[in-house]
């Protein structure tokens, strides 16, 4: 069984280079075709930066409940994936997803989502491809929100306690 991992997104570091999309499609389809990628870099409105969007494998995933074919399943790795043989391409999982994460495969209209590179060597490939920017990080399950909280708190520190100010209670 593959080791369980999550992919943490640090959107501020994303430059929109889309190397993750190329790596993902290479890993899964053997072709550098971003439209087959399971991770998608969303360009936000004018100069708003970029966000890599991928399936978060929600604990209480709504896509698991709305799929008419029961094609959305939780894999051993903890990822939520679409069973291609069962999927009829109705996109219910895409519509209910709070991030709009599932990608629609151009050849058959079926949805695909991040499987955390289930058994690819050197995976996750998108994380490897994002080495320079560091917008994607492979972490242990549960670690992503912890790190996000820690980073947010660190970012607030200079605001709440400017350099040279007195410490609380001192």
């Amino acid at each position, binding site marked *: 069984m593959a080791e369980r991992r999550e992919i943490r997104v640090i*959107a*501020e570091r994303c430059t929109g280079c889309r190397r993750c999309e190329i790596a993902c499609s290479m890993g899964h389809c053997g072709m550098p075709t971003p439209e087959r990628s399971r991770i998608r870099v*969303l360009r*936000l*409105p*004018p*100069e*708003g*930066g970029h*966000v890599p969007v991928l399936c978060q494998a929600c604990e209480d995933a*709504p896509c698991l*409940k*709305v799929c*008419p*074919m*029961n094609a959305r399943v939780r894999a051993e790795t903890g990822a939520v994936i679409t069973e291609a*043989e*069962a999927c*009829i391409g*109705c*996109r*219910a999982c*895409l*519509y*209910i*997803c*709070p*991030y*709009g994460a599932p990608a629609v495969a151009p050849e058959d209209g079926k949805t695909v989502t991040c499987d955390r590179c289930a058994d690819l060597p050197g995976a996750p490939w998108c994380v490897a491809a994002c080495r320079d920017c560091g917008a994607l990080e492979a972490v242990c399950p549960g670690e992503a929100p912890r790190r996000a909280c820690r980073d947010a708190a660190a*970012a607030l520190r200079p605001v709440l306690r400017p350099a040279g100010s007195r410490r609380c209670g001192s």
Partner: protein
Amino acid sequence: MRVLIVGNGIAGGEVAFGLRRAGSGAEITILSAETTPEYDPCSLPYYLGGEVPRERVFRRRWEDYRAAGIRLETGEKAVAIDPASRCVRTASGREHPYDRLVLAHGGSLFVPPIAGIDKRGVHGCKQLPDADLLDRHGGSRAVVIGSGAIGIEAAEALKKRGYAVTVIEVMDWILPALFDPETAGRLKRRLERCGIAALTGEKVLRIEGTEAVAAVVTDRRTIPCDTVVLATGVVPGVELARTAGIDVGRGIRVNERLETSLPGIYACGDCVETVDACTGEDAMFQLKHNALEQARVVTRNLLGASASYPGAWAFARAHFFDTHAVTFGKTTRATQCELGDLEIVEREAGDDYLRVIVKEGVIVGGQAIGRFADAAGLLIGAMWRRESVPALRARRALLGDGPHGTLPWTTRRLGELLELAG
């Protein structure tokens, strides 16, 4: 403890297997009026249309019940509950005792009072036997009565089987409960482009034919056909509960814990009357995701926890050929009998269409076709969180789209989608 579950649909199966997954040692029995293991009614149109083989509709196999130690009594239709002796009687005359009872028998097809409705070639499309009959039925011209989600899906499936298909809707637009006329009109045109005739505002008067169906007569025309599919809606099954003295309204009434008015008897799935999770209003959304969530609440309560059900979510998709549409929350019509300022945000790009219904500054519903539908999740999220649209406008005006950190990306995407800047 003996847990007796009436109904082997989505809700019933989820309770039974959920109890086992949680390690319950209860004696679990499911009474099913049907003869198969649990299947998914949502998938029937795709089996009928030949997109997936028949075995794909099943959610469980016979051996799953054996492995989980769940007794599945097929062909056993529950006809009476005796709450005093804690016992359910079936049509075959057998009695099944219980300590806890779960009513999950769903609803049945509403059969409209139309003359000739009992002729050969008139089918439902709600249960697996209906789909099997339609699968074996070798017709070539079909009339689908009713244009709800099931009607449209059945029409598509029959079209794919080579039938000439006509959909008849008594209301003024197709999918009347799910979409506004503006959205439905666009869907209707797309349906017609796919070769399916859609007649709205038209009433079926009778079905003609000697023994088998030969034609459907409406108030405007006669349509020759050899197949009629009834997609006229689902009525919640309340008789079993009513005769046992359980409080019923449109569906079986339950409290927050999904317990009926009689202690020890729970209800979940299509037979239950519940509330809209967003508005708290009475609601009956007979949809699979709600059945699953209700079943999980019942399971936890049976296990001794005190779980409460937040209410049902209105979310449905319409999908035929290359048309993809989604609807969530309320339609404009559903908001019309309420006070409050209504604002409709519309966007159109080519064939794609977005319609968001904002009431008193909060998104209460929306519909989308094509590309706009891909972002429906963001709108649904904003609706569920009751995010203020004027506040979103103000923030965008103040902060612009700014760099990262000023507004969450979901909020900015939402603003872009609604074109609320400035």
